[in-house]
């Protein structure tokens, strides 16, 4: 990179099933003001803004810069909007990173959000289909996730079981109790998960995250500004993004190449050679419990088929050798368009030592992972306490 870039502030709104007390601009403002306050700056100090637009339908109005811009202080400032599936928030941060690294701007704020405008939940993740190919099936993400989970279980028969999925949910829900920002903060048991009703087999209700409304924001700055404003910024050491872009049938769902490649890009940039030992904690995008295991393998943290064993042995627990989702993960807090930025925020907070009760001791390098679309688009960010 031409210039070093660090996270100097993060902010999250209150998450609720429905945030009907505010309008969308006010919701985004809540997170943006928190991030600026955390960074010790005001809107006037921000050189440029990136807004993460949610996928088309949950937001009828496309011109988010028009109504959200003024709420976060972006009026009259450089602004760009990125779009993607559920990984859009992570992409927004990476866009902000490129802008600062390029030398164009010193301080950039990226914001992401989710406030559902369509009452019928079925429309909220409907647009996975390729209109030229499988429009007639109209499957939502949960169906793809069910196919993915079964594919993964079949490939590693005897090594990965349905209980492993349940154990992920149990672990992450337990971690969420320690995270004051988390949406769902109550513990469950493996039995609860196994006995919960089937959504798309082998996925059951308690294997799924519960979608909520909320917003997140992150402030990044160049090295000079970052050092001035923050005694211990979380440096962005590596970024990667990859879409397999092959329509659903091409994707190896149990070991998605997009995730492997996004990680490779980020690892190369961050000088991560042995993910399992070079990283101190990771936040992965566990919209569905099984996915935590799949991402850990595709990220090179566990060998294929071993993520279940790693979990059983406590390796991914909050006090394990490589805690996974210490924040409670997406399964505890899923403000869809913002969830992937929340992973980055949580990873950055771990690096800055500001994670409070769910802080992993001595984190020097943390990874944030995100997926989106039809399980074919992955984004990876690595944060570091040193340069």
């Amino acid at each position: 990179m031409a210039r070093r870039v660090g996270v100097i502030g993060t902010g999250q709104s209150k998450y609720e099933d429905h945030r009907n007390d505010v309008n969308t601009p006010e919701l985004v403002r809540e997170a943006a003001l928190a991030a600026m306050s955390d960074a010790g700056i005001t809107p006037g100090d921000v050189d440029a803004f990136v807004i993460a637009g949610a996928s088309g339908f949950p937001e009828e109005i496309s011109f988010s810069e028009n109504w959200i811009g003024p709420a976060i202080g972006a009026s009259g400032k450089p602004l760009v909007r990125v779009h993607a599936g559920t990984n859009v928030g992570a992409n927004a941060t990476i866009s902000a990173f490129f802008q600062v690294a390029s030398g164009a701007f010193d301080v950039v704020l990226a914001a992401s959000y989710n406030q559902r405008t369509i009452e019928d939940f079925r429309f909220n993740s409907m647009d996975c289909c390729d209109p030229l190919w499988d429009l007639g099936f109209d499957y939502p993400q949960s169906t793809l996730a069910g196919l993915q989970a079964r594919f993964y279980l079949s490939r590693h028969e005897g090594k990965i079981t349905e209980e492993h999925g349940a154990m992920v949910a149990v672990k992450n829900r337990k971690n969420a109790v320690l995270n004051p920002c988390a949406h769902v903060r109550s513990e469950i048991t493996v039995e609860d998960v196994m006995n919960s009703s089937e959504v798309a087999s082998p996925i059951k209700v308690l294997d799924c995250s519960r979608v909520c409304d909320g917003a997140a924001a992150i402030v990044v700055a160049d090295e000079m500004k970052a050092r001035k404003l923050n005694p211990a910024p979380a440096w962005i050491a590596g970024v990667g993004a990859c879409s397999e872009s092959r329509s659903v049938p091409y994707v190896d769902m149990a070991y998605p190449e997009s995730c492997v490649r996004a990680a490779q890009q980020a690892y190369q940039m961050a000088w991560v050679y042995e993910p399992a030992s070079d990283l101190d904690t990771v936040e992965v995008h566990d919209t569905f419990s099984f996915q935590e295991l799949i991402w850990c393998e595709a990220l090179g943290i566990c060998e294929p088929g071993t993520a279940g064993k790693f979990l059983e042995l406590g390796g991914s627990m909050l006090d394990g050798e490589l805690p996974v989702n210490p924040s409670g993960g997406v399964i505890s807090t899923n403000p869809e368009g913002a969830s992937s930025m929340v992973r980055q925020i949580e990873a950055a907070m771990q690096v800055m030592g500001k994670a409070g009760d769910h802080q992993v001791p001595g984190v020097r390098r943390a990874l944030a992972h995100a997926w989106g679309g039809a399980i074919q688009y992955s984004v990876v960010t690595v944060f570091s306490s040193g340069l």
Partner: protein
Amino acid sequence: MRHITEISSKVEPVTFVEDELELSFRYWYGEHYGRFYAELRDNRRILGMRCEKCGSVLLPPRPYCGFCHAPLRTWVELSDKGAVDTFSIVHTPNAKELIETPYACAMIKLDGCDVPLYHLLGEVEFKDILTGMRVTAVWEEVRKGALRDIRYFRPSEQRSIRSD
């Protein structure tokens, strides 16, 4: 598995696929808009906000200033009279056909407000509409809490201009 080297001329290709969607959206207003629309509905009052920092009087009412980003706290009651800033006679049907074409629309600067309001013009011949023309809101009898609780703005009488 057979290899096919030429495209059979016997089949008539399928050229497109169609899809239909019916969607219902609900946007939450929050406190400020919520009060604004309620006053419009219940009291025919148009409320704006004043920025104590830059002095602007603004619509729509929001908890922050669109000009200088300061938090806003001061509500002000605006007049339902003003002047046409710009106007257009529209012949293109709108997507949702909410308004019959042709119609006259305008950006109207309400007295005391620093930003114009988009609305419709009525009770006037298109050819008589002028920039700067004084107008007065004509309210709907049955109001729902929306900008269209004002049916349209009509030209103000000469007398009422003086007396404003």
